[in-house]
């Protein structure tokens, strides 16, 4: 116990990292379930529903499959780089989540704010630094496979990623201009109030609503994470495979997880920059809205109970009883005032991130794929000028009082 009180920073940081890793790995697995279900329902079919109740054990089955597949190395491949590439991709994709604030810094344990692992004063730039290193995972994967198609797929994919990085960064600078800081918590505090104070909507003194910025950011982010409709390097050569053709079993799973982790990172960034992060959309004076999380969870428990009673027999019923009990317990626990105060921030943050991920999956199910030259000309000739124009208009609006007072 002495050790804990003497080194609070170390202990709290370790606890935060372990908790975050646990939550992150579970979320990555269930994100694949979420994507398959949503795409299926858009396409008028059911998606995974057999493996568990509502297909909820499908990610577990996929994980077991990935672990038991044969793990081979292509002949003539550069062994060191071949093994390094997926590890690099996954590590970098997961590291950015250490900088994301999941809730207000006022939630503390042992004097350290609990809901953000690394509160850096240049948080936004560090996130961009780590995502710009993510290009290496794909380029090296393509190279080390010692085969023509993965090499071309890897080169195309990396060229696409570095092109859209420029538009991504420029789309975000408008928000930095409005907030005057690169620190995430301060940026969110700048947007406090109700939902009309968020950066995407706010039309006040010296502020320009960042709708164009958000749309540019979203399109650049979809291209940056190699998702549809920009997934030509891993889609068209899907007949052959793209940069991950020669990877099997767990290394392929690592690339898969890295892609989802990148999606999560980009959605979290969009929430923080444009939608107010962990802030509630309702004004602070509506204190009854603080009970929304437990009410929501209890409503979910009621729906699951209905499902348990009406649904078919057998093991699915037992699984649903477990999930219902879990939702009920957590919902009732949230009514306790201490837990209620802690859960406010993460609830709204995760809700907004979930909505943006739903848009991601919706885009994938709806839009056709872009050809490679269309993709590159879109990034350089449309997104970059539009992001620049947004930046210039935002800067003009921000310094307008200074210009008017001089003249």
């Amino acid at each position, binding site marked *: 116990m002495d050790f804990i009180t003497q080194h609070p920073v170390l202990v709290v940081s370790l606890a935060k990292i372990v908790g975050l890793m646990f939550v992150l790995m579970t979320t990555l697995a269930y994100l694949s379930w979420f994507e398959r279900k949503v795409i299926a329902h858009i396409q008028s079919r059911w998606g995974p529903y057999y493996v568990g109740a509502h297909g909820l054990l499908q990610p577990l089955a996929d994980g077991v499959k990935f672990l038991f597949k044969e793990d081979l190395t292509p002949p003539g491949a550069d062994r060191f780089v071949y093994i390094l590439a997926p590890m690099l991709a996954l590590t970098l994709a997961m590291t950015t989540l250490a900088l994301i604030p999941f809730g207000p810094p006022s939630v503390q344990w042992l004097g350290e704010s609990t809901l953000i692992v690394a509160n850096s*004063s240049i948080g936004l*730039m560090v996130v961009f630094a780590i995502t*710009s*290193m993510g*290009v*290496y995972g794909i380029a090296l994967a393509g*190279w080390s496979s010692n085969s023509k198609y993965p090499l071309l797929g890897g*080169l195309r994919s990396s060229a696409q990623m*570095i092109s859209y990085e420029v538009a991504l960064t420029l789309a975000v600078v408008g928000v930095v201009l409005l907030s005057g800081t690169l620190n995430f918590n301060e940026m969110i505090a700048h947007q406090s109030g109700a939902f009309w104070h968020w950066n995407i909507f706010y039309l006040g003194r010296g502020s320009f609503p960042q709708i164009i910025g958000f749309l540019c950011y979203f399109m650049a982010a979809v291209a940056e994470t190699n998702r549809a409709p920009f997934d030509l390097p891993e889609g068209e050569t899907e007949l052959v495979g793209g940069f991950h053709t020669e990877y099997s079993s767990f290394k392929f799973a690592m690339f898969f997880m890295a892609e989802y982790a990148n999606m999560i990172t980009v959605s979290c960034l969009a929430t923080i920059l444009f939608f107010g992060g962990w802030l509630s959309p309702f004004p602070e004076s509506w204190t009854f809205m603080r009970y929304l999380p437990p009410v929501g969870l209890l409503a979910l428990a009621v729906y699951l109970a209905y499902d348990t009673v009406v649904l078919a027999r057998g093991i699915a019923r037992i699984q649903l009883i477990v999930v219902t009990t879990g939702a009920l317990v957590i919902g009732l626990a949230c009514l306790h005032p201490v837990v209620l105060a802690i859960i406010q921030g993460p609830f709204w943050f995760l809700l907004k991130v979930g909505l943006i991920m739903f848009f991601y999956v919706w885009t994938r199910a709806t839009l056709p794929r872009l050809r490679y030259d269309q993709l590159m000309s879109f990034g350089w000739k449309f997104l970059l000028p539009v992001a620049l124009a947004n930046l210039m208009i935002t800067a003009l609006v921000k310094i307008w009082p200074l210009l008017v007072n001089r003249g």
Partner: protein
Amino acid sequence: MTLPFIVFFVCAALAVLAALTLILAREPIHSALALVLVMVSLAVLYLLLGAEFIAAVQIIVYAGAIMVLFVFVIMLLNAGVEERTDYSKLAKYAGLPLGIFLLLALAYWMLESFIGKQIANGLGGTNASVSTRELSAQLFQKYLFPFEATSILILIAILGALVLAKKDE
């Protein structure tokens, strides 16, 4: 052995080992990856020296864009293994000892010079990190002309690279 010392020695050892790998590697791609490792460890050292913005710029621009360009070119040209010719051996037997002598001499002079001792004993200054606000104030007020000149330089570089890489029609 406080934490800053441990971080310094780990990053310094990583940087020197990676630089040695750059010299000793057979494949150019391994040299490129070693150089990326040097840059990343230098970025950590910049953080230790309190220059956080410069550390982020180093990773974004140097390790994340320039070295990606190097890796692209190595992959495109499929640059092969270094060959051993006679002239290379001459450079190795004459250049290498002189290079090592230069390295040791520079290091010794850095450590034992008057300025080196003065800085080791403390030349004043706080332990706080430089904020981005101060740095950008300097960049946009005192160094505005070089800033604009480098933007023109980058434009020239883009045009030059385009012209050079174009196929002759």
